[in-house]
């Protein structure tokens, strides 16, 4: 299960993500992030409510970052929970993504 919310804060369009980002929900996550990037130049994924992320979930975030790069948009992931941060750290996602401890907005 994954729950997605959207709101705007200080010029950033924030996609809030709760639950699990895995093989069953990765498409939904990637679609939501890509849709946000269609209409906004500064998009943040707030992963504070994400309990679990699998390789499929990571790929969804990475491909959203790729879409942002293609549009010259800003894309950041923020507020990673400890288990999710561990996965990001092991994968070296900080080399590719802009990762913030707090929301950038």
């Amino acid at each position: 299960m994954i729950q997605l919310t959207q709101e705007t804060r200080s010029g950033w369009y924030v996609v809030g993500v709760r639950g699990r980002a895995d093989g069953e929900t990765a498409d939904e996550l990637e679609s939501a992030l890509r849709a946000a990037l269609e209409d906004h130049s500064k998009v943040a994924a707030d992963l504070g409510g994400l309990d679990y992320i699998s390789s499929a979930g990571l790929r969804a975030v990475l491909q959203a970052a790729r879409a942002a790069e293609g549009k010259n948009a800003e894309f950041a992931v923020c507020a990673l929970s400890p288990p999710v941060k561990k996965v990001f750290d092991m994968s070296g996602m900080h080399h590719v993504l802009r990762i913030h401890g707090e929301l950038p907005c």
Partner: protein
Amino acid sequence: MLTMLEEVVLLAVDEKNGQLRSTREFGTAYALVGAVFFDLALARKIDTDLETVHIVDTTPTGNATLDRVLAAMSLRKDITTVRGWIEEMFLRRQDLEGEALASLIERGVLRHELSKRLWIIDVERFPMEDKKPQQHVKLRLAQAILTDQIPDTRDIMLVSIAEQCGLLGYVLSSAELANRRERVEMLSNLETISRTVTAAILNLDASLRQTMTKVV
């Protein structure tokens, strides 16, 4: 579209003479097992996290090699880790390279030639019938490595498997590879399956060195 396994095996074919560059070494065999797992992940049949692998969907993909591996996985609920499955498939692997070559011949990308050397030794060659697929694979690899842009998921996987098979030297010069070593390592580290395959190959190398030391 070619599978990841077919793309890596195609990369191993010398475009000038149709000879296979890979030598069916253990490291390459591990990497080809990794390619099959990537294909299953791309087909949304399996998913992994830092340690475990689980089946998302057991319906066949239509590709005989992938479906054989998927069926084997669905029967063995006792193996749950990526490492466990890489080792299991390595031990019970059939000729993944041969199956990919047969598929590439069927698709009209390669043709098979068998000749004799010194009248007795069989020599197999796989000359290109269509050069475009291999050129496309090489172009994607070069773009993924030489630019700083975030590559497509397939290209990230392709870089890591080609690196593990020792095939990147046929795409880029030594100088280019040396300059972009950090980039190759960064891309290869992004996927759990690649990290596990790399660890398995290193472990195998260490075991072989230990065995050789005992023999000597």
